[in-house]
């Protein structure tokens, strides 16, 4: 079943266009972490454009410690059976066999995720080797371009998952989009230096200089807990948001999920944002960055 682009007569599956196409369909939407089919239904009812099936939300992974792995296929299949929207699932960084299993299950997108414990400290998965698309996290433009050069169809800023704190997501979005803006101002000689500094393929840097944007959609993840957080990410230039612990670690998940969906669509409309932010109850408590030490940071995983 593993096997990149396959052509049957005039029809092809697994092409870059088909992979990036699904990422385009997810724009302007909210992808919610869910741990069972009940949560998946709440997410779909609230207007999520996709769900991420996983055994524990990042806040619990952080609390429990130990090794975090791909979820049980039985649990992923139960979620697939319960909703119409796309279902994503996470594989460990570099763990291409987990990815093969997820493809065999027919998940719609694989997240090669730093939230799980990395399986390879040097290599990421060769994502061209798969029919289904991959999303990967990035803290800066160089990391994003390395993942794209490995075949990622979608990039999400990493933020710091499971903290309910938006500060890292803002840092990563500003870094990625700020460097894109600078590259569009660079002359052709400076692009060589940019490629060297970013440790990224020159051709991708040159393409950004021409188009002014990343080759694949850019979403935001890691720390979104409120409608205002989602709108902040969107106004900074993210094209969709992933919400992990922020929904199901809050007091009242269903209305908060719906409010975040509306805030993501109407992200520039402060009147809508004010209306949907009212009376949502207590958001997840959250963690300040100086309360976690460097070894507990998920964002630094990935190379």
């Amino acid at each position, binding site marked *: 079943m593993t096997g990149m682009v396959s052509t049957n007569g005039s029809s092809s*599956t697994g*092409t870059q*266009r088909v992979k*990036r196409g699904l990422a*385009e*369909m997810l*724009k302007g939407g909210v992808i919610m972490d869910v741990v069972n089919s009940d949560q998946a239904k709440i997410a779909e009812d609230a*207007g999520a454009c996709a769900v991420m099936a996983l055994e524990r939300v990042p806040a619990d992974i952080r609390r429990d410690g130990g090794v975090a792995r791909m979820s049980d296929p039985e649990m992923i299949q139960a979620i697939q059976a319960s909703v119409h*929207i796309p279902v994503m699932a996470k594989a460990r960084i570099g763990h291409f066999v987990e990815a093969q299993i997820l493809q065999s299950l027919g*998940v719609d997108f694989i997240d090669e995720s730093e939230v799980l414990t990395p399986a390879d400290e040097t290599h990421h998965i060769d994502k061209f080797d798969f029919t289904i698309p991959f999303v990967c996290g990035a803290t800066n433009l160089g990391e994003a371009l390395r993942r794209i050069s490995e075949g990622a169809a979608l990039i999400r800023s990493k933020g710091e998952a499971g903290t309910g704190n938006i500060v890292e997501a803002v840092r990563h979005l500003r870094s990625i989009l700020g460097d894109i803006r600078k590259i569009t101002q660079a002359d052709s000689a400076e692009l060589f230096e940019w490629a060297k500094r970013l440790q990224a393929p020159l051709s991708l840097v040159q393409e950004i200089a021409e188009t002014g944007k990343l080759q694949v959609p850019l979403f935001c993840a890691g720390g979104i807990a409120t409608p205002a957080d989602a709108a902040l990410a969107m106004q900074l230039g993210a094209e969709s948001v992933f919400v992990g612990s922020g929904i199901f670690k809050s007091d009242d998940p269903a209305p908060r999920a719906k409010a975040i969906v509306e805030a993501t669509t109407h992200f520039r409309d402060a009147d809508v944002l004010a209306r949907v932010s009212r009376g949502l109850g207590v958001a997840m408590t959250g963690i300040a960055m100086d309360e976690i030490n460097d070894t507990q940071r998920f964002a630094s995983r990935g190379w």
Partner: protein
Amino acid sequence: MNMQVGVLALQGAFAAHSECLTSIGVQSVEIRTPEQLGSVDALLMPGGESSTMSQLLESSGLFDPIAARIADGMPVFGTCAGMILLASEILDGRSDQRSFSAIDISVRRNAFGRQVDSFEANIDSSVGEFHGVFIRAPRIERVGVGVEVLGSINDEPVLVRQGNVLAASFHPELSNDARLHEYFVSLTAKKKKV
């Protein structure tokens, strides 16, 4: 010509449609509120998740104004999820999913399968030959009497039209080819002259 095409921007591939329209010199405007709908001559409904869009059409107060404009003859083009929103019958959708019933077709949501089955293929069409990108695509399982089939793959309809309503189960906005957008704009131009 001074024409403005609205692109429903509640969720989905609206940005790619706007780029297509810009590439053929047509002014486009993103539609998220009823007020924004007022100024447009035609409306494009992109792909995305039809159940998400259906809910956002309700919460944004856009559903009824769009239905009224379509009934009033405004040209509208739905692709993939957009086509589902326009169909008279949705199969395998959510029970609470609403549609505009603007074109007499029955469509089955995600009938071509999950993403692993998403594909691109050539389409035979009376409007020209197109390369279509199908993403978790819906299938047109029934075509009503008044509906014209403009394009098909393997004898199965994928591009249909009924009066001012055009619908495709694929994504013309993903294949660097704006000819279908040009065709839609030409329908709008005819309408505008009348």
